[in-house]
C-alpha cells in the first residue's frame, strides 16, 4: 500500500476489503513516518504503543462486526500543543521538554473514539508563536515540497506531515493563521473552524480568545470529516458552542452555481506576486463554476495587524505565566536559578527556557496590559476587533462566502526572514482577520508558482457555516484537480 497518498476513504475501503488490518496499517505508517521524518523534522516524537493499542481496538471491533468509527484506523498526527495523556507534550519549548500530561484533550478523545490512530506529535513554533516553524526549540521543520524552505507556521509540522505523506490527516492550532498559512505553503487543506466549534480543552493556550484547533488533510473531504468528528459542545470548555454539528461530508454535493462570492478590495491591493496571479486564476475558475463574484470592502482590515498583536500578546503574557519552574516546567539549572531568591529562580527559568519570539510577545503583552496603558492599547484593540467582526457581518449580508489570498508570498527560505519579526507579523494580514472575527475559514490549494511552490486560496464563511465553506472548497478542488496536488 502507498501510505503517502492515502485518503480516509481509501483507508476505510482497504480495511473493509481486508487488504490490510488497522495494526498493519499503523505499523507501516509508523515505519514510513519514522524513516521519512529526518528529511523534514515534522514529528517531534512518535507514540507507537498508543498507536498500536488504538489500531488493535479498531481491529477487534471490525472482527466483532461492530462499527469501528468514521476514522477507523486513520493515521493521525497531532500538533504538540494539544495534550495527550502519557505522551510528552512540549509545545516546541525547552520549558516543557519533559512534560507528560495526565489527561487528553477533548478533540483527541473524540478522534480516538472514532477510530483514529495517533502516530505522534508534530513540531511547531514555540507555544504556537510564529509563521515559519523556525521558533521551535527542537529545530525548524523543512517544507517537504522544497526542503530548503519553511513549511509555514506555527503548525508547520502537521502541515508538513500531511504533505509528506507521513500522516493521512493532522491536527493543528490556529490563532492568527497557524493552520491556513502552513497549509498554503505545503499544498494541503487546512481549516480554522468557527470559534467555539471545537473544544479548546487540552489545547495549550497561546491567546485564548483566538485559539482554535483545526484539521489538515490532503483533500477537503478528509479535513471536513476530521472536523465533524471532533466538533461540538464540550462541558469542559465554557466557550464551546451549543450549536448542533451537521455532517459536512454529506453536503459535498458540488452545488455552488449561483453562490455570491466577495473579493475584499483590501486583500487584493498590492498583491502583485505570483501568489496573487494564482488567486486571480482561482477566481476565474470559480466564475466558470457558476459563482457570482463581486468586490466587497472590509475597511477595518488596515488595523488588523496591530489589533491582533495587542490582543494575542496580552493574553499570551498571562497564559504563559504558569511556566515558572515551580511544578512541571523544567527549572533552569544555572547558578542564577540556585540563588536563594524566588525571583532569581523565575528569572533564570523563564530567561533560559523561553525562546526569543515568546519573550518578545510576553513583553509586548505585559506592556499593553500595564496600569495606565490598558485603555490605550488593549481596550482600543478590543474595539477594533468589534469593527473587524462588523465588517464581516455586513459583508455576509451581501455574499455567501469571501475568497482571499492566504499569504502575500509562498514558502520562503529557512532563515530568510528571521531577522525581521515585523515583516513576519505583517505577512499575517490575510489570516488574522478570520481569527479576530471568529468565523470559519480555510486554505485550499489553488496551484503553484513557477518555482513549483504551492499557493493556497482562502475561503471565509459566516459563523457556523462550515458546511457551505466545505462545499465550495470541495467543488473548487475537484474542478481544478487540486486534491493531493502538492
Amino acid at each position, binding site marked *: 500500500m502507498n501510505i503517502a497518498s492515502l485518503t480516509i476513504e481509501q483507508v476505510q475501503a482497504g480495511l473493509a476489503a481486508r487488504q490490510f488490518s488497522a495494526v498493519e496499517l499503523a505499523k507501516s505508517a509508523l515505519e514510513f513516518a519514522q524513516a521519512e521524518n529526518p528529511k523534514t523534522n515534522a514529528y517531534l516524537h512518535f507514540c507507537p504503543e498508543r498507536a498500536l493499542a488504538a489500531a488493535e481496538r479498531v481491529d477487534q471491533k471490525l472482527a466483532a462486526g461492530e462499527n469501528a468509527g468514521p476514522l477507523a484506523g486513520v493515521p493521525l498526527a497531532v500538533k504538540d500543543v494539544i495534550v495527550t495523556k502519557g505522551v510528552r507534550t512540549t509545545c516546541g519549548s525547552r520549558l*516543557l521538554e519533559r512534560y507528560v500530561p495526565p489527561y487528553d484533550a477533548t478533540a483527541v478523545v473524540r478522534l480516538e473514539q472514532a477510530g483514529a490512530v495517533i502516530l505522534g506529535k508534530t513540531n511547531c513554533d514555540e507555544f504556537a508563536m510564529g509563521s515559519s516553524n523556525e521558533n521551535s526549540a527542537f529545530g525548524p521543520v523543512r517544507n517537504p515540497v522544497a526542503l530548503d524552505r519553511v513549511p509555514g507556521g506555527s503548525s508547520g509540522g502537521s502541515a508538513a506531515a500531511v504533505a509528506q505523506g507521513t500522516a493521512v490527516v493532522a491536527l493543528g492550532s490556529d490563532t492568527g493563521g497557524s493552520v491556513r498559512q502552513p497549509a498554503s505553503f505545503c499544498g494541503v487543506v487546512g481549516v480554522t473552524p468557527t470559534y467555539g466549534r471545537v473544544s479548546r480543552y487540552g489545547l495549550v*493556550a497561546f491567546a*485564548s480568545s483566538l485559539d482554535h484547533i483545526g484539521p489538515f488533510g490532503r483533500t477537503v473531504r478528509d479535513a471536513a470529516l476530521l472536523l465533524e468528528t471532533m466538533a461540538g459542545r464540550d462541558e469542559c470548555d*465554557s466557550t464551546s458552542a451549543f450549536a448542533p454539528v451537521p455532517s459536512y461530508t454529506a453536503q459535498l454535493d458540488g452545488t455552488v452555481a449561483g453562490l455570491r462570492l466577495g473579493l475584499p478590495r483590501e486583500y487584493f491591493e498590492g498583491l502583485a506576486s505570483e501568489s496573487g496571479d494564482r488567486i486571480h486564476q482561482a477566481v476565474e475558475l470559480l466564475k466558470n463554476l457558476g459563482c457570482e463574484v463581486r468586490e466587497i470592502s472590509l475597511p477595518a482590515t488596515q488595523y488588523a495587524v496591530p489589533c491582533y498583536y495587542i490582543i494575542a500578546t496580552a493574553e499570551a503574557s*498571562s497564559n504563559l505565566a*504558569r511556566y515558572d519552574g515551580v511544578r*512541571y516546567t523544567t527549572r533552569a539549572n544555572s547558578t542564577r536559578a540556585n540563588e536563594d531568591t524566588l525571583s532569581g529562580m523565575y528569572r533564570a527559568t523563564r530567561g533560559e527556557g523561553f525562546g526569543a519570539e515568546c519573550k518578545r510577545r510576553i513583553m509586548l503583552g505585559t506592556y499593553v496590559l500595564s496600569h495606565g496603558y490598558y485603555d490605550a492599547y488593549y481596550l482600543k484593540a478590543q474595539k477594533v476587533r468589534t469593527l473587524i467582526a462588523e465588517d464581516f457581518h455586513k459583508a455576509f449580508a451581501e455574499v455567501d462566502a469571501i475568497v482571499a489570498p492566504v499569504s502575500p508570498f509562498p514558502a520562503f527560505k529557512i532563515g530568510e526572514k528571521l531577522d525581521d519579526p515585523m515583516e513576519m507579523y505583517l505577512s499575517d494580514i490575510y489570516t488574522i482577520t478570520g481569527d479576530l472575527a471568529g468565523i470559519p475559514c480555510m486554505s485550499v490549494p489553488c496551484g503553484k508558482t513557477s518555482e513549483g511552490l504551492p499557493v493556497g486560496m482562502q475561503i471565509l464563511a459566516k459563523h457556523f457555516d462550515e458546511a457551505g465553506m466545505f462545499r465550495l472548497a470541495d467543488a473548487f478542488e475537484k474542478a481544478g484537480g487540486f486534491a493531493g496536488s502538492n
Partner: protein
Amino acid sequence: MSSSAPAIATPEEIGKYEPVIGLEVHVQLNTRTKIFCGCPTGFGAPPNTNVCPVCLGLPGALPVLNRRAVEMAIQAALATHCRVNEFSRFARKNYFYPDLPKGYQISQYDQPLAEHGWLDAEVDGAKKRIGITRIHLEDDAGKSIHDGFKDSDRFTYVDLNRSGTPLIEIVSEPDIRSSDQAYAYLTELKQIMQYVGVSECDMEKGQLRCDANVSVRLKGAEKFGTKAEVKNLNSFRFAKMALDYEVARQVAVIESGGRVEQETRLYNVATGETVGMRSKEHAHDYRYFPEPDLVPLRVSDAWLEEIRSSMPKLPSEKREEFLGKGLSDYQVLVVTASRRWSEHYEKAAAISGDFIGTANFVTSELMGMPDALDRITPEGTGTLVRKIKEGEISGKMAKHILEKMYETGESPDQIIDSEGLRQISDTGALEKIVDEVIAQSPKQVEQYKSGKTGVIGYLVGQVMKASKGQANPAAVNELLKAKLG
C-alpha cells in the same frame, strides 16, 4: 528616642483626628466542590490530593463556573442589600507566586457580581450604616508552607488542595470611623454569612480573612488622608488592635510634621505593630483583563427571584422578631448569636409554646454548656421547658435532666422514666402520701387547726420528702389545705 522605634501618638493627639476605615473581607463559600472544577473543597485532606488539571493549572485545562458558588454569592449579596448585576464578568489578576499555579487569579474587576449594599454595625446601642461597595467572586490560591519540615530552612512546600476554592470578596465603603465600628461590622458580617449559610466563617481555617484600608484626617476635615493597607488581620480582636495601632501611628507621623506614605503594611501579632511591606512604587501591577476562558455571567430575573424567595431570615430581622415576643435585649443577643442558636431557640420555643420561658432556659442553662448545640436537640430543650411549664417536673429536676441529656444523649422522657423522676401531680397518688403525713404529724395538725397556719410549710416538706422530691409542691399545698380545711 531611637529613630527606628515606632512613634505612637498620645490619646490627646489621637482625639484631634478621625479614622477613616474601609474593610476588604474574603469569605470562603461553603460549596461541596471548587469554583472552576469538580474537586472537593474539604479541609484537612492530605496535601495535593484534592486536585485535578484545572486547579493545578496544567497546560490546556480550562475553568467551568460552579453554579452553586454563584448562588451562594448571590445569597450573600442579597443578605447585605446589594444590587445583583444582571451581567458580570470574570477577569484575570496576574501575579507570580508558587502557590498560584495558573500565574493569575480568576476574579472579577470592572463588572462585579453585586454592588451598592450596606449593613448596620451597632456600637453601644448606636447603629452606624456601613456601605458595601461590591461583592465579587474569585478563586483561592493554594497554600505555601514555610515551616514544619526537616528542610524548611531551604525549601517551601506548596499544597494546592485549597487552589480553586470559591471565595467572595466583600469590599466596604470607607464609612467606618473607629476600630469598634470595624469590630461591629465584622461581627455582623460574619453573623450574616453564617445565617445565610454561605460560609462557616471559621477564621482558624482561613474561611474569613480581612484586610483594612486606613487613613486619618483632622476632625471636621472633608478630604481623606493618604491611606495604608493593613494585612494579616487574622481575628476580629487582632483587627481592632491593628487598627488602633495604625491610627495612632499615622497620627504620630502627621503630628511630627511627616506625611503618611501610601503603602501596604503587615500586622505583627507578636509585637502588636504594623510594619511596612510594600511601598506604592513597588505595588503590584495586576494587569487585569477580561478572562477569555469564561463567558460573561448572566443572572436572570427568574434565577434571582428563585434565590431571593429561598433566603432565610437575617439576624437583624430575627432580633426584631424576638424583641417583639417580649425577650430582653440580653436574651435576644444570646439566642441570635448564630444561626444554629437562633434555630435551636426557635424550634424549642415552638415545642414548649413559651418564648420567654425557653429564652430563660436557654440563656441560664444551655448557654454555659460547651458544644451544647452538638449534644442537645431543640426537641430536648423544648420538651424540658414544656414539662416545667406544665408542672410535670420542677426547675431543679429540669437542670438535672439536662445534665443527663448532655452526658448520654437520651431524651428527657427516657431519663425521667429510667430515673423515676416524674413529678407527682396526680391527686390520687398524692392523697395517699398526704394522708400518711397527716396521720404521722398529729402535733402539727393540731397547731394548724388552732390557727398557726405557718406550720403548713413543715407538712409540705414532709410530703416532698416522702415522695422523694417528685411531688408537685403547689399541688401538695392545695391538697393539705383542703384536708385540714
